[in-house]
């Protein structure tokens, strides 16, 4: 019997796919599916199982393993060396510790004034421009992009270059040739940049990595991972969050009244959208039993993270958006040793954007109905392509 094709195209922005919830609601919550690559993989769908897998060293993150789950038709031509997301213990710990100090809660709080400035400048520019404006181009993309570029030490005038290539790389429609080209361009650029930094010793994340004696090739790989991860993810959450809040005036009013509500609201938005739905994939390197099912060494495993984040055994009224829920046990940032390195940067950016945008433009509204927006139904990272917004003058 062949396993059914895994459904990956979203129908509703915040509901898990019907196939995924159907798997979740079977006795075991585990089923075999066929990936776009043709691989047959185990699909886990319950929060408890996914958290168990992601904390179990018998599952590997090594994308060089030919059985690692692939979501594109063509096999990836590109295998960056020693990227954090590929590493298993014992290599992973020291590599992560070499950089995670740059992303602590306290370090991120220290970035607040500069992020606030960036957000204000972009809102100023949007208000000075025509109505309606595209929130994605005006705010969602440039803010996280500028923040990560500054943090790494990538000149801002090169950021258009990154956005076009990161967008191409995250599209499922990209051909193997197009992917190869975008990756090669990015790698060349970063190689040049890091060679320059090695000569000049700059005081930024990449400069400090070089100063600590890290291999420049590894720093290129790190820069690559952080730039791609820091661009489009937060941008998509900004767009989705703004649309959700504009569609829910009571919640928005409550948020405006009390900014202590913003952080719990962000957690709920992360949970309901689970934009990196298929990022929690692994390959078993030993036989493991989960939920009564034996997963054999060498089997690919995918986590249906959006179904898990709507798992009724983990979240009460799981299909409802409750902005004061405040639950952080979701897997939107993953779980286990690879849990998102930049999560506290993302929280900080989202918090500042939401608080500032709705305070400064109280009349902000969608210029296109929410159900007519161009959602990224088929992208590896879910989001919205364009969000036309308008407001009353003077804002």
């Amino acid at each position, binding site marked *: 019997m062949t396993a059914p094709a895994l459904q990956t195209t979203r129908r509703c922005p915040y509901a898990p796919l019907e196939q995924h919830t159907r798997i979740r609601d079977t006795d075991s919550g585990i089923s075999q599916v066929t990936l776009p690559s043709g691989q047959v993989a185990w699909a886990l769908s319950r929060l408890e199982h996914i958290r168990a897998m992601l904390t179990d060293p018998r599952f590997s993150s090594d994308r060089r393993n030919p059985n690692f789950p692939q979501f594109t038709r063509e096999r990836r031509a590109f295998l960056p060396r020693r990227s954090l997301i590929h590493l298993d213990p014992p290599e992973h710990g020291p590599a992560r510790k070499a950089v995670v*100090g740059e992303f602590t*809660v306290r370090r991120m709080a220290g970035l607040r004034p500069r992020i606030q400035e960036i957000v204000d400048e972009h809102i100023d520019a949007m208000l000075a421009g025509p109505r309606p404006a595209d929130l994605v181009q005006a705010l969602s993309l440039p803010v996280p992009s500028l923040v990560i570029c500054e943090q790494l030490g990538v000149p801002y005038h090169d950021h258009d270059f990154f956005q076009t290539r990161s967008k191409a790389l995250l599209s499922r429609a990209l051909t193997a040739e197009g992917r190869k080209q975008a990756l090669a361009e990015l790698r060349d650029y970063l190689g040049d940049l890091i060679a320059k930094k090695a000569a000049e010793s700059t005081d930024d994340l990449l400069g400090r990595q070089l100063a600590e004696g890290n291999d420049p090739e590894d720093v290129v790989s790190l820069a690559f991972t952080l730039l791609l991860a820091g661009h489009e993810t937060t941008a998509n959450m900004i767009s989705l969050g703004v649309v959700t809040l504009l569609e829910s005036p009571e919640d928005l009013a409550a948020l405006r009244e009390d900014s202590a509500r913003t952080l719990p609201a962000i957690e709920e938005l992360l949970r309901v959208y689970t934009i990196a739905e298929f990022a929690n994939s692994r390959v078993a390197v030993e036989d493991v039993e989960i939920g009564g099912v034996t997963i054999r060494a060498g089997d690919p495993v995918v986590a249906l993270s959006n179904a898990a984040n709507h798992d009724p055994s983990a979240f009460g009224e799981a299909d409802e958006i409750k902005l004061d829920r405040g639950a*952080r046990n979701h897997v939107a940032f993953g779980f286990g040793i690879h*849990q998102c390195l930049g999560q506290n940067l993302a929280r900080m950016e989202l918090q500042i954007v939401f608080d500032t945008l709705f305070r400064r433009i109280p009349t902000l509204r969608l210029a296109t109905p929410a159900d007519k927006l161009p959602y990224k139904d088929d992208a590896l990272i879910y989001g919205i392509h364009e969000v036309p917004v308008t407001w009353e003058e003077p804002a």
Partner: protein
Amino acid sequence: MTRIVANPDRCVGAGQCVLTNPDAFDQSEEDGTVVVLQDTPADDEALKRARVAVGLCPSRALSLTE
């Protein structure tokens, strides 16, 4: 008495514990790993938060001992 035990070797610096209770947890400037500021929860609220932090720690670096 309940005590919070942290294993910095396992810690991956996600910061979930700091988000849960910044009075009890911090992260090292050096490598981002957990620093326990208050290892014995002073009241029920602190104990509750300690339990939440243990449950949210992605690398299972935190535990409670009696």
